[in-house]
């Protein structure tokens, strides 16, 4: 319990630090939301008036504290460019990005666990060698390029999906999920390749240990040893990787959303950055930071469940 409390405290501190850094970065980069809102109708008087109205003339620290207190009270402010409440804007887009990341995560689990175990079991066999090479290739291809490649392959050659044919989840859930499969694979593939590699070497390492030999000497079959004894131990480093991979996927979907024209958080984040719409940017970046921290937190908890030794030593 004390551990959880400590973790939560560290988490909050990190989020506050991130939010302040974003604020600081925004006050350092050129451009200003008032200019972007008024566009070509900007006259010096109108700019001054709008800056005053938005409170942009206050010092950064003051603006930050104001924002922070509003945020704590659950008020994320209003988007400068859209005049929409930030909460509403983001809530509408979270399901899109989250679904995409979850699908990518699922894809990674479904492909990497069986393949990882298979290659570990048949280490140095023919299949293992082929998979090893494919893994190396997949790991080195960035997900956005994989996205373009998959669009070309499945969209134009096999015609299995319509590029740019995104369907909103409010219109058709199946259409929505269907469209996200290819983008999810694009994000998931490189991670899956890494997970396979990790699991394979982790299992291989465990196989060299004494307890494995003991397990074999007790007359267990290879499958028995693998599933009953080795896997649990071998999964520990892999779980760490999963946690990081999920956080990475959420962040990675920002790029993939551009490639596949998916109107999720990533698209909003990018346009808001170029519009200097910092209430929106601030909220989305905090959300992503939160996901990263939460993923690590969950990994810690899962560790303890898988291996009770960890909580005893710490």
């Amino acid at each position, binding site marked *: 319990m004390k551990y959880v409390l400590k973790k939560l405290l560290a988490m909050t501190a990190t989020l506050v630090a991130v939010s302040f850094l974003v604020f600081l970065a925004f006050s350092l980069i*050129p*451009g*200003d939301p008032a*200019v*972007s*809102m*008024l*566009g*070509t*109708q*900007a*006259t*010096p*008087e*109108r*700019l*001054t*008036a709008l800056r005053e*109205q938005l409170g942009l003339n206050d010092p950064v620290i003051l603006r930050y504290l104001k924002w922070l207190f509003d945020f704590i009270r659950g008020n994320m402010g209003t988007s400068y*460019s*859209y*005049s*929409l409440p930030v909460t509403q804007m983001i809530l*509408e*887009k979270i399901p899109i990005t989250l679904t995409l990341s979850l699908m990518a995560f*699922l*894809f990674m*689990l*479904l492909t990497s*666990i069986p393949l990882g175990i298979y290659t570990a079991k048949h280490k140095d066999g023919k299949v293992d060698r082929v998979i090893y090479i494919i893994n190396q290739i997949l790991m080195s291809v960035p997900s956005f390029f994989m996205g373009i490649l998959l669009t070309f392959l499945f*969209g134009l050659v096999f015609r299995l*999906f*319509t*590029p*740019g*044919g*995104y369907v*909103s989840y409010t219109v*058709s859930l*199946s*259409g929505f*999920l*269907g*469209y996200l*499969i290819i983008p999810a694979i694009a994000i998931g593939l490189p991670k899956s390749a890494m997970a396979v590699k990790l699991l394979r070497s982790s299992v291989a390492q465990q196989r060299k240990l004494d307890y494995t030999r003991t397990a074999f000497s007790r007359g267990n079959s290879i499958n028995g040893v693998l*599933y*009953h004894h080795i*896997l*649990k131990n071998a999964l520990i480093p892999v779980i760490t990787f999963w946690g990081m991979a999920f956080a990475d996927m959420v962040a990675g979907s920002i790029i993939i959303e*551009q*490639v596949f*024209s998916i*109107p999720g958080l990533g*698209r909003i984040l990018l*346009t808001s950055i*170029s*519009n*200097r*719409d910092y209430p929106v940017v601030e909220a989305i970046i905090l959300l992503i930071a939160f996901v990263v921290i939460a993923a690590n937190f969950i990994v810690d908890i899962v560790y303890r469940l*898988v291996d009770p030794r960890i909580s005893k030593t710490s």
Partner: protein
Amino acid sequence: MKKKGIKILLLMSVLLTLTIALCGCTGDKAGDTSSTITIGIPQDLEDSLDPHVAVAAGTKEVLFNIFEGLVKPDSDGNIVPAVASSWLISDDGTVYTFTLREGIKFHDGSLVTVEDIKKSLDTCADTSNGTPLVPAFSNVASVNIIDEKTVEIVLSTPNTEFISDLANINAAIIPADNADSATNPIGTGPYKYVSRSPQENFVMEKFDDYWGTPANIKDVTFKICANADSVVMDLKGGSIDMYLRLTSAQVDALDDNFTVDEGTMNLVQALYLNNAVEPFNNPKVRQALCYAINPQEIMDMVSGGKGTELGSSMYPSFKKYFMTDLNDVYNQNIEKAKELLTEAGYPDGFTFTITVPSNYTQHVDTAQVLAEEFKAIGVTANINLVEWETWLSDVYAARNYDATVIGVDASSLTASALLGRFVSTADDNFTNYSNATYDETYAKALAETDDTAKTKLYQECLTILADDAANVYIQDLPEFVAYNKKYAGYVFYPLYVQDISKMYIVK
């Protein structure tokens, strides 16, 4: 532990199989186009939906379907009645009297009243922020309700062209009691607002109680297609039925299933020069640059030879003012250009920077061709690509630049919309152009009440801008609109608007 793990795995695989199975039902749901159209637009409406506050041209062109002012423009460039059924301008050009159209309704079903009109116009003229919310309203002295169907606008100085400012979306009539007009727009136009999702779409629906010719297509979705490279794919794949502003290369990639209409963008594209900096404060240098370029060559490189050459700050859709002969004030003449440079004291040329917003491919391409052309007269132009926001703040607002390639549009149907910015004291004179004769002629034109004399004075202004080489004028860019052959009825306006209400379904 092991059993649990397997269970989870099983559950996951079932879920994935389900998703894959479900995705099989996508693809062919394009059948029910009975009365819908999905229109691709390159940029989102990153703006307030309140017509009095909206500034982006991309927002206003869409809102044109939802809002109307007392009057509105038609596709021939005339001002026609809208919320007002008729109007009268006093002979001295100071009092405008409007009669409210009988029985005209807002989208929420309520009748439009003179109070709504007064509130809307007062909001436009509101100076609580220092300047009026809608700059064109700086001249409004008062808005008075005469009786329950008559409203008059009194101007502080005579202006017979104020009527065209009233046709702008910014002067739209909205309900006086609509508290959240920024997110729930209610107007009197042929379409009513349904919903919007940032970076995704903007949806509107036919307004059945529209006072005029009703719209034909019932449901209209503007879909944001941020990825310009996939537009052709989107059209062919059917995820959009229509796209505004294609490039000529995209048009070439389309097949027979699409109608492509060619119009002009109604922009004055030029190499705008900062007339206040060396060496552009010397008219001879500016003229030399004009002699150095060949607009046709630029059009060939940038827009497949399409486009209309311009010689001054006016585009051809304004038929009344456009003067073709200004295109020939400077024809490419390298010798002449070099001579002028020598006279100006730059026999070996000079170096300057063209600042271009990187999001406008056509302007970036134009700048590149220009830089090549200037090499022939010994002038080196470096191209500096900037973000649109940086362009707005550095070039447009701070006027801190040498030269820039951009397209300037007109906010209303009068020449002053394009010419006003070259008056030396104008707020939006981003080129720092300063010419006493021009200021005088422009002031005369504004005050003139006779239309023929007025047009003549405006043309004089145009001639001054051309002779003085205020900027290096290039072209009005071509605009291609492509739509599926199922639809027809697209009309071009001389303004930056999209009128969807006239489109209909063929079969």
